[in-house]
């Protein structure tokens, strides 16, 4: 049995197994730390930085940073919220995120994160407005990489869960984007049953399961019913109710 450690998050005591990441420990304790590149069943990679927290005064990614005994962690502070807002706003400016017509609207983690973080205005950055061709060659799946936020969840899902290596990052810096292992998706061995194409892996509307768009009525869409992170926070509420 692993050693138990104790630390605080915004003054609240948290107990965790030694070796757990800050995010794992906080999730278990019902404290939600916003994240976009991290997802259940995937190896954390700490690339989106939306889960930024301060560990004893140093900024770290909560999804990859192990928790430390007796550490002081700041997460829901004015400064950290400001970092997260800036990061998410920049993602909106890098891609073409036309929420009013996107079939991911209401199920999209980027959109839901913007609502959670109170983003209601454009950032003072230019819109890059990428013009990348839609890959609709596959009979069951389409890719609109104009909506990609480079979270890499599809890369890890295909590589680590499906064992197919369908996706990989290509290019560097501002030119970085998601590439596929053939000229078109139809030329890969992708199938609709791959974990990489299951609902919830792509956090935005980049990976499209064909002919399923808008099937979920507006009032039944995931984030129309609850704020992103509320499932994790519900655990804390349940614990408190049990204690009461």
């Amino acid at each position, binding site marked *: 049995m692993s050693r138990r450690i104790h630390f605080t998050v915004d003054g609240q005591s948290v107990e965790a197994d030694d070796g757990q990441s800050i995010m794992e420990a906080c999730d278990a304790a019902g404290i939600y730390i916003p994240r976009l590149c991290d997802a259940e069943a995937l190896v954390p990679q700490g690339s989106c930085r939306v889960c930024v927290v301060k560990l004893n005064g140093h900024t770290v990614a909560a999804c990859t940073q192990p928790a430390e005994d007796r550490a002081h962690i700041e997460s829901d502070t004015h400064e950290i919220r400001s970092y997260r807002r800036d990061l998410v706003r920049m993602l909106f400016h890098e891609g073409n995120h036309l929420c009013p*017509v996107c079939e991911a609207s209401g199920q999209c983690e980027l959109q839901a994160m913007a609502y959670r973080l109170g983003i209601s205005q454009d950032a003072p950055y230019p819109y890059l407005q990428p013009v990348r061709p839609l890959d609709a060659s596959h009979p069951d799946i389409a890719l609109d990489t104009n909506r990609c936020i480079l979270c890499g969840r599809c890369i890890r899902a295909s590589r680590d869960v499906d064992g197919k290596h369908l996706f990989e990052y290509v290019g560097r810096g501002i030119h970085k984007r998601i590439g596929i292992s053939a000229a078109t998706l139809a030329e890969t061995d992708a199938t609709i049953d791959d974990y990489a194409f299951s609902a919830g892996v792509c956090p935005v509307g980049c990976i499209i399961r*064909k002919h399923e768009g808008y*099937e979920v009525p*507006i009032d039944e869409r995931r984030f129309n019913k609850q704020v992103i992170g509320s499932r994790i926070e519900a655990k804390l509420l349940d614990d408190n109710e049990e204690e009461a």
Partner: protein
Amino acid sequence: MTERTIQPGKTPGNRVLEIDPLTRVEGHGKVTIHLDADNQVSEARLHIVEFRGFERFIQGRLLWEVPVIVQRLCGICPVSHHLCAAKAMDQIVGVDQLPPTAEKMRRLMHYGQILQSNVLHFFHLASPDLLFGFDAPARQRNIFEVIKKNPELARQGVLMRQFGQEIIEATAGKKIHGTGAIPGGINKALSQETRDALLPRIDTIQAWAEGAVDLIRDYCQAHPEQIAHFANFPSNAMSLLREDGAMELYDGKLYAVDTEGQPIFSAVAPADFNQYLMEEVRSWSYMKFPFIRSLGSEQGWYRVGPLARMNTARFISTPAAQKRLLEYRHLNGGANGETNGKGMQHASLLYHWARMIEVLHCVEQIHRLLEDPDILSGELRAKGERREEGIAIIEAPRGSLFHHYRVDKNDQITYCNLIVSTTHNNSAMNRAVTEVAQRHLSGQKNITEGLLNHIEVAVRAYDPCLSCATHALGQMPLQVAMVDATGKTIQQFTRDSGHA
């Protein structure tokens, strides 16, 4: 209401009337009036100078996105575009017959749309002209003065529209720009809770709709001279009809009748519309001029919308609206109202009366559907064999709306052509503007504010998209220019909605 101010023009004696900077550009309209050497009006033109580009940028998108994207053409009648595109996509996915629940949910959405749009137009946009007079001071001709003068009437207008919007929300998920219709069906049935909340209100809404028909009927009967002489001209008419000749707003075959009500073409399948209609381009407007192919561009123009639907239909399938149709057809002693050719109406102002009869029809249809058990459960979506082309027609509030698409094997749109209701009415609106300008402007040296409003009243009767897209409470951005015999602009008025 925005006030009009007069500013000096560049040439001595010329004037330019301006109202605030033009801020909304979705609904640009312009009128030019051409005068001969004796200051007589020789021609007047309504120019639609907006350009949207949806037909181009929808290309490459995926077929199921189309009903959601194209509805963004409009904030007043998005449901019409949503459903028309969905009907075209039904054909692409090989579905000719929707499951009953899907078809009834879509119809419910559509009747809610026509109800709210027609009510909006009548109460919010048109009623100030009718209640206060075309020449009433500009500051009086707005919904706020209607509220002051007749608060109960205004309240009914607002609440009827709200009811229509709530029907749309119940079926599409949102009051504006929802996502209910999907290729081959609908994404939900109506919940019992929602149905039970809407149904008890229907009798009140129907009573108010009857009252609205009374109001416009009484107005028309009290103003026979105005009805007879204001933009009253015979025209062909076109709309969808049910195969037994009943007025049909959601689906049906295309029919056109001449000025006497005799058939020009009948029971044309939407997919064949190109064999019967053509479009002409004129250099001075972004809007095309459609015409009936067999009659040519000079004689083949026609009207669509409420007035046209009353002229093409043999009858209306709901009892209260049918009773009102007969009453309408008897205006000015217009013979028996049961068949085409007897009781044809051509006065532009009668659009308002026809529009309210449609409101009543929609309320009756909504009542029927809310009591239909199919609306609460059943199969939502059908599938079929893929096709490459889809053509659909729906009767939008303003008239027949055409959507035509081609889709490649990857499900991407390769071709899109939309012919919207206002386009069909282009020639008729130009005719209406000319009639009014000739009657009220010929020989006049100065354009008055009252004249400007007469022209607006004529255009407004058609409820064109250029007025609704501005959301501008009874006004539309409108420019009137007087052009002399040499082609020189001698006087110009510019009017804006005045709203950001």
